């Protein structure tokens, strides 16, 4: 440093400083100028003190033959959020959960004006990470920290682990050591995550935002294609999550439109009574042979619905009426049957009722003309005398269709909600707070 000749004023500062490894003599290029704290020799993997003019050796570590090289080669430049950054450092860290080691990669990015930024990668899932400028606030109402607040947003606790540094390469703005352990705590608010690292009495917070591999590839102009993302990452945005509210809002809107439609149809329906007559079925009359026809009645106006309403003075018995609506002129006929039954009684739970004394049936699209009904009543052979009234009303609204429409409208929001729910379940099943299984048989 001190041996370099003074630069003429205004000359650009050299971007890279060339030095030699004190252990193996290999050339080392310091890319982060005066900002690197540690640098790793690419040949012998000695960790060097980048601040000392002689690059004092801090640690040597057994290089694990790298079957796992950086996906972004050191020295590659890429553009993140409109700023160019150079990849200057790479480390592999891991955690052990129930005896299984999970490892991920971290890249140190540098810009001489904007400073440091990081990229992390785990099984094809990337995060763009920066050091927090504001101090996040942990919710300490419970003995364990379940959430943290950062810039007005609540992040849910996802996982606390002990991370070990396994492999390092390049330069770092801190004193890096292989084998060093840190306690990491992740809080998520997809697509962002908040991480706290605690090591040797110091804590630091960083904020990450989920990035897709293809965006990293295009930012750094990398050849080929990025590794495919496996599984669901802790802060991966749900493919349907943000849509849920708008889908339900659309549903509410359509349901309201349907309701308005229904009301206006109801208001416009004429509900015109065209026929009414009362009959009696006398006790003990033979069954199934008492068919008769009514007087004719006019269905005027346009083709419309026809409602046939049956009312009977029943008490713990039933009557079955077989109707045929017949057009006097064309002979066109609509055949339908209706049972009216009504039972009441008492049991240990108190009084009960079943059925009713009225029944209606709607015949759709009946053209205008002169009509009559053929009625064939049936009842229990031991029935008492039953009085019943038959009414015919034309142009009535059919509300059942609206119910079906409503159910059809419900399908997309329910499917999307279910997908979002499943996605969140998969996400959280990897966390310290796995969801309860829905069914006992789940996973079998």
């Amino acid at each position: 440093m001190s041996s370099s000749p003074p630069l003429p004023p205004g000359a650009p500062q050299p971007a890279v400083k060339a030095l030699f490894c004190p252990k193996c003599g290999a050339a080392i290029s310091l890319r982060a100028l005066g900002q690197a704290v540690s640098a790793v020799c690419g040949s012998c993997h000695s960790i060097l003190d980048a601040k000392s003019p002689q690059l004092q050796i801090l640690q040597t570590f057994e290089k694990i033959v790298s079957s796992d090289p950086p996906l972004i080669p050191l020295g590659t430049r890429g553009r993140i959020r409109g700023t160019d950054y150079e990849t200057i450092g790479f480390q592999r860290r891991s955690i052990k959960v129930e005896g299984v080691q999970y490892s991920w990669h971290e890249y140190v990015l540098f810009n001489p004006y904007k400073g440091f930024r990081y990229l992390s990668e785990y099984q094809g899932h990337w995060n763009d990470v920066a050091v927090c400028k504001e101090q996040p606030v942990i919710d300490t109402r419970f003995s364990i920290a379940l959430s943290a607040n950062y810039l007005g947003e609540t992040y849910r606790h996802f996982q606390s682990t002990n991370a070990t540094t396994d492999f390092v390469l390049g330069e770092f703005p801190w004193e890096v050591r292989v084998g060093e352990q840190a306690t990491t705590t992740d809080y998520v608010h997809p697509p962002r995550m908040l991480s706290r690292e605690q090591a040797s009495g110091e804590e630091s917070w960083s904020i990450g935002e989920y990035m897709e591999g293809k965006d990293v590839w295009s930012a750094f102009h990398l050849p080929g294609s990025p590794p495919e993302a496996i599984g669901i990452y802790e802060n991966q945005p749900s493919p349907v999550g943000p849509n849920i509210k708008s889908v339900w809002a659309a549903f509410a809107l359509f349901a309201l439109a349907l309701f308005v439609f229904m009301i206006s149809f109801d208001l416009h329906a004429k509900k015109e009574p065209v026929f009414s007559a009362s009959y009696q079925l006398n006790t003990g009359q033979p069954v199934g042979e008492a068919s008769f026809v009514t007087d004719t009645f006019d269905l005027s106006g346009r083709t419309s619905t026809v409602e046939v309403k049956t009312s009977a003075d029943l008490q713990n018995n039933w009557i079955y009426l077989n109707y045929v609506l017949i057009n006097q002129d064309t002979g066109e006929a609509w055949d339908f049957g209706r049972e009216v039954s009504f039972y009441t009684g008492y049991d240990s739970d108190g009084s009960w009722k079943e059925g009713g004394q009225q029944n209606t049936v709607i015949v759709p699209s009946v053209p205008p003309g002169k009509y009559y009904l053929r009625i064939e009543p049936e009842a229990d052979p031991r029935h008492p005398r039953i009085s019943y009234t038959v009414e015919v009303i034309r142009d009535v609204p059919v509300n059942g269709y609206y119910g079906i429409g409503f159910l059809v409208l419900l399908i997309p929001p329910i499917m999307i909600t279910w997908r979002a729910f499943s996605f969140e379940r998969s996400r959280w099943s990897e966390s310290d707070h796995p969801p309860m299984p829905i069914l006992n048989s789940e996973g079998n």
Partner: protein
Amino acid sequence: MTKPVSNCPNCGARITFQWSSSVQTVCEYCKSILVRTDVDLKKVGEVADLPSETSAIQLNTEGIYKNKAFVVTGRILYEYDQGGWNEWLVAMNDGTSAWLSDAQEEYAVSFPLSGQKLPAESQLQVGQQFNWHGESYSLSAITKAHYRGVQGELPFEYWDKTDVLFADLRSASRKFATLDYSDEEPALYLGELVEFEDLKMKNLRQFEGWS
């Protein structure tokens, strides 16, 4: 603003003060540390060249902070075991001054606050709570730094230091506080982290291959 001019008592070079309240400056040519007296400049010491690559900021860098234009007139460089940082003295166009610090390209602007009752060095403890100007601060770290050198103009005499103690205090917002124990009396600075873009700086150091 009139710029007082004199000559270096050591090498005779012309010394121009950018900021009228400067107390100390460093001769660009012979690196003598010069202190202003009532009549002339007195040489009190010398500094070695400071490394230039540790910051994008340099003397005469201009920028804007809270709608006030500023120019960088002086520098103190500190180092500690996790790196180094620069405290740049910036003279605002309204005659006031502030400190623009740059630690691994994390930028912050701070101002001294006098008249506060401050804890003695021996009383400092991580986790202590303080309240200044309606903001609460928590002591997050006590750092022993090494004084590396000075450059340009400073508002006080500052040279011949060795190890200096600082206490860092954080708030829930971007605001922070620093307790400086480099003199007998502790000094308090209140500041906030700022974005590089927001300072709209010009005349920055150029790095080869970066724009």
